[in-house]
């Protein structure tokens, strides 16, 4: 029994190490694996919106940093292409 659990723990450990090495290789470096786990996974979500869902509204801030407008103000007349992103 004890031998079996040692064997199981050993193989799981080996599997984890292999997975980490493989991920490091795929992502670029061990630092990128850490970044992915620490920063990307908690923030990446598929979301619940589907084609045909009502588009949610949100209040945005203008480039001047003080004015506001709503996404909804920009919809209705024509299709609205919404592009989300950041600089880095």
């Amino acid at each position, binding site marked *: 029994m004890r031998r079996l659990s040692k064997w199981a723990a050993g193989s799981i450990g080996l599997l984890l190490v292999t997975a980490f090495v493989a991920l490091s290789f795929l992502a670029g470096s061990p630092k990128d694996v850490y970044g992915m786990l620490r920063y990307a996974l908690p923030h990446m979500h598929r979301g619940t919106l589907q084609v045909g869902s009502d588009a949610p509204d*949100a209040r945005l801030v203008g480039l001047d940093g003080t004015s506001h407008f709503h996404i909804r103000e920009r919809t209705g007349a024509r299709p609205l292409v919404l592009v989300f992103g950041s600089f880095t």
Partner: protein
Amino acid sequence: MGDVVQIYEDYKNHADFLTVYVREAHPTDEWQMKSNVKDDVCYAQPKTLEQRAAIANDFTKRFKYPLPFGIDDMSNAANDAYAAWPERIYIIDESGRIAYRGGIGPFNYKPAEAREWLAARYGAVKHEAQPAAAAK
């Protein structure tokens, strides 16, 4: 980004566009990448709306970015509503419904799909004179 700008230029007479600036993907204090240093795009994750607006302005000025622009506020309301981070494209039709839902970047961020949606409605815009790299 260049591909989105090209789509904007091609279809701005037919559709409205809005870029929404959300939380940084690779700030210096989180998961910075080598490419950020190479491209000289090194910013800490903004903690205030002023910092966020300052980076947004750096971005639009550096690339003379032509699309209408909005900044997600510090509650990340737009980002949460659209599950947008780190980058994502949607098209909302005239009735206010989602007509196209793009995948999550970087791997499933595909401006070409948004272009296809617009092309199906308004006709394709060809760029034969352009080099392949610019048309991407």
